[in-house]
């Protein structure tokens, strides 16, 4: 909502309201003299369309080459990823089959799933820089932090 159009329109409206100017009726969108609805309606539905980005043929080939190169990179990454997952899955399947052949009781235990198994709350998603304290070894695992910083 911070486009120059919206900002200038809002400024105009606030100045008018501050100056005590009477609000002009505009089809009922301004309820109880509230001109914000007008503004929102303009921004959502009446805002001028952006001019389409036009490219010359050589620029278009350049753009397409870049797009294809990026798609290729993503495709290669995805292929690596799926191959890795398939390998790991196969190892796990073999291990499970072996366990089943070895001991029925242990196998049953291994297939039991905790219903409310979740990742620990201390799990940190990727960030650009590491935190000040990477891992608190003294705090027991059961204690959950109150809020994140």
């Amino acid at each position, binding site marked *: 909502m911070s486009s120059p159009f919206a900002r200038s329109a809002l400024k105009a409206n606030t100045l008018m309201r501050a100056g005590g100017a009477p609000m002009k009726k505009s089809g009922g969108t301004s309820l109880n003299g509230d001109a914000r609805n007008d503004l*929102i309606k303009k921004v*959502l539905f009446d805002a001028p369309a952006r001019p389409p980005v036009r490219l010359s043929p050589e620029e278009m080939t350049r753009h397409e080459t870049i797009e294809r190169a990026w798609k290729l990179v993503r495709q290669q990454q995805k292929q690596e990823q799926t191959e890795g*997952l398939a390998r790991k899955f196969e190892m796990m399947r073999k291990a499970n089959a072996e366990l089943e052949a070895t001991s029925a009781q242990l196998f049953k235990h291994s*297939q039991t799933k905790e219903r*409310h*198994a979740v990742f*620990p*709350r201390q*799990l940190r998603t990727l960030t650009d820089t590491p935190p000040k304290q990477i891992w608190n070894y003294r705090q027991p695992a059961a204690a959950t932090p109150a809020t994140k910083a």
Partner: protein
Amino acid sequence: MSFRIRSLPVRALDLGLLPKTSPIYHAAQQFREKSTATAAAIGHHSNDLRKKQNSNNSEVSGGNTTLAQAPIYTTGLSRLREHYTTSIQEDIMITSYRHHYKKKKQILEGVKVELKGNKHLKPLPRASSPTDIPELVKIDVHCMMKEAITSKYNLLSGVMAIQSITGETPEIIFAKKGVHNWKLRKGMPIGCRVTLKGDKMYQFLDKLVEVVLPKMKEWPGLPEGSGDGTGNIGMGFPPSALSLFPEIENNFDMYPRMTGFDITFNTTAFTNMDARLLMSGFNMPFQKSNNAGAVRKDPSSGMAKKPDNSAPSDS
């Protein structure tokens, strides 16, 4: 936090985010002059103003072509997608692995099956496979405003709020049936909804989990048993939660009405357990009950087992 800004210079020019001293600004200005000159010459106007953000189709006119809008995958890194693929995907694959697949009765196509009560048919879970790992597919943000019954322009505030939060223009939902007690007539605009996929979805989830949820007052987390049975999780927000989003916090006064909304996480998981595991991997907090030796359910044999530490926990 790393919310990436799209790197197309023309777009940045519109947003006014580039400093005027940067060389990119001048290059973009020249580029824009060229493109507006050709646009003015041809006189192109997009008809559907409502969906203008997604409507630029590529067309060939003369030698020039128009670009389609940016797709779901941008060149910048999506933090939570990277987190999923590098950190939690393999663990989810291992934890949700079931060696034996319980094959249920196949229901033939065209055969109408009626269940007792309000139950409905659920999709059959598939056997575990490396390609079938629970993944977040889309997020639905939906807002219904009762005030829109008295005046449909009340809905504008909700639409604007959801657009600011998510970055996509929501579609307006019209009532399918009338309810006399609430003075609702069929066809009245009553709510709005937007579906987020790909990068936008991960960005929104990032905002939720890092900024909004920690600031919510006395919110203990999602219920322990949440889930709809087919691997989707829904949650609702009160109107006060809307003011916690950074986009709305900055210009709070521009929104006439604060409204609550609800969010549905659609995943490719088949059970509630898998869905919860997936969402907790994105730091979505779930409530924990106090009994340590809780009875656990074994999906393959259906009997209560004595507790054992089979669930792997990792950092």
